[in-house]
């Protein structure tokens, strides 16, 4: 076990180092930065949905909450370290409360979807309506549909004048994604992660084994929100403005599509799906012949029809069938007839 963990970590580091080195040769770091951030956002939903079975229609709410928390805190505090931390904590606490309400109330999955959707809508409507001067938190005006511009962006911890921007900011975001990815890997290999997967597979059974399903789902939900919040804060720094569109349902829907296209139940899939589709959208945005939502919708339909498990699992099983022989030989499995055969 110990050796394969090391193996995993080394592969992750080598692959990410290569990508961080090679990608800027092809795509501008400004664009890459936002792809990395979306990758992190995709991973946040990929974790709770793909491994915890929690389909959240409101992952954008935590993303937006992280971004706004950062912006508001940065205006009030100035130095960026504490605002970054708050941007992770506030969405996590918010999600813990929301999750506790849903999971202890033992709501069915459908209602979970509806509630997360409605919460996103409420946040969107609320933030949109805060244009008036009476909506202030400390020195920060919420600004309604205009958003909040002009906050302190990321600085070297302890030195508010040493801004991190441009290429270095890309490297900060990329390293942050690698760290989050490794943490997620570690989480999924831990007992907590294995139990989460068990809960995804059969909640009733896990309850009958003695696991407190509601608490565990709440914790996982909050972890997902923390990651989304971090992505939000990074996004705020990248855009140097936060607007209510961060909370939009369109954004939430996109995150779900990233996960489906990239591959649910994998760590890598949602990142690839997010970065790939976001890049595609960026390219399509540079022309006006075809509407990009149309293309996104078409891709989703094609994937659901032809690659329902998503890109990464499909590629993985393809590679496996090509190079399968060179890897550790799978033990001959007894083949089984139908399930209840």
């Amino acid at each position, binding site marked *: 076990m110990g050796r394969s963990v090391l193996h995993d970590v080394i592969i992750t580091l080598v692959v990410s180092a290569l990508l961080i080195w090679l990608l800027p040769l092809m795509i501008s770091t400004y664009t890459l930065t936002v792809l990395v951030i979306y990758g992190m956002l995709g991973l946040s939903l990929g974790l709770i949905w793909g491994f915890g079975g929690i389909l959240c229609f409101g992952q954008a709410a935590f993303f937006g909450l992280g971004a706004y928390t950062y912006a508001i805190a940065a205006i009030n505090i100035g130095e960026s370290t504490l605002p970054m931390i708050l941007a992770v904590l506030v969405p996590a606490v918010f999600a813990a409360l929301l999750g506790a309400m849903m999971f202890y109330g033992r709501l069915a999955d459908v209602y979970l979807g509806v509630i997360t959707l409605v919460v996103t809508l409420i946040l969107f409507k609320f933030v949109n309506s805060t244009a008036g001067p009476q909506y202030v938190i400390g020195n920060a005006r919420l600004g309604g549909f205009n958003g909040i511009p002009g906050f302190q962006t990321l600085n070297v911890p302890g030195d508010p004048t040493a801004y991190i921007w441009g290429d270095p900011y890309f490297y900060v975001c990329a390293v942050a994604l690698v760290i989050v990815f490794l943490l997620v890997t570690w989480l999924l290999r831990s007992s907590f992660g294995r139990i989460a997967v068990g809960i995804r597979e059969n909640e*009733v*059974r896990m*309850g009958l084994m003695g696991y407190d399903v509601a608490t565990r789902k709440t914790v996982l939900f909050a972890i997902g929100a923390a990651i989304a919040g971090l992505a939000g804060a990074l996004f705020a720094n990248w855009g140097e403005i936060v607007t209510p569109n961060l909370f939009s349902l369109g954004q939430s829907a996109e995150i779900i599509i990233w996960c489906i296209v990239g591959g649910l139940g994998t760590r890598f899939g949602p990142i690839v799906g997010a970065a790939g589709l976001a890049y595609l959208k960026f390219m399509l945005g540079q022309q006006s012949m075809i509407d990009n939502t149309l293309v996104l919708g078409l891709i989703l339909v094609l994937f659901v029809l032809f690659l329902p498990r998503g890109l990464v699992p499909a590629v993985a099983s393809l590679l496996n069938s090509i190079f399968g022989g060179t890897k550790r030989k799978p033990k001959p499995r007894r083949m089984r007839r139908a399930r209840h055969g």
Partner: protein
Amino acid sequence: MAETVLETSGLTMRFGGVTASDNVNFKLKARELRCLIGPNGAGKSTFFKCVTGLLTPTEGHVYMRGQEVTGWQPHQIASLGVGIKTQTPNVMDALSVHENIWLAARRFYNVVEARERADSIIDRLALGTIARTQLGQLAHGERQRVELGIVAVADPWLVLLDEPAAGMSAQDVDRMTEIIHELTRFAAVVIVEHDMQFIRSIAQTVTVFHQGAVLMEDNVERVMSDPQVRAVYLGKKA
């Protein structure tokens, strides 16, 4: 005298107009093995669900080792050290045999010990060759065996099995009988079953359910030869 590990008093469960469990008073001693029988719809599973917290009884009380557990959640009851198998198979189909059983053990033991216990029960249940196979690919009887492993792996002191032998081969049933006998060295076991031969082979005391209520509770031979029992149950089965 052995301690009472499970007791219900006046346990009643109504679904609208249907009284699925009707004023059931039930007592089980430590390390006792008890079979519940009764025709389809007699309320055996409903009784089980009330005891395990899957249903909250309309009236009445449930006690485990003297502690009132009425209205507790299933996970709270299981945490006491109660192993539960529901009538419908309840397993993690996308996970391997080993992972299923390891998860059950992990609730009560640390990572290493959980793995050792899982390995050992997989051996005892002769699941070694399929330990890494996903449950979804297994035959029904094997899945039943895995679920027995899930129930038994953490050394429960009370085991509740709802139709564990359904759909099993004769060989599987023999192996299960063995495991159940091993369990009774430390645990009280309640089994819902229809298979008369199986019941005869393991049980001493049988409780007969009929229309939600306890019709009779006695030694297995006396129950089998009771005319009333034969009328409601065996007669119908034939």
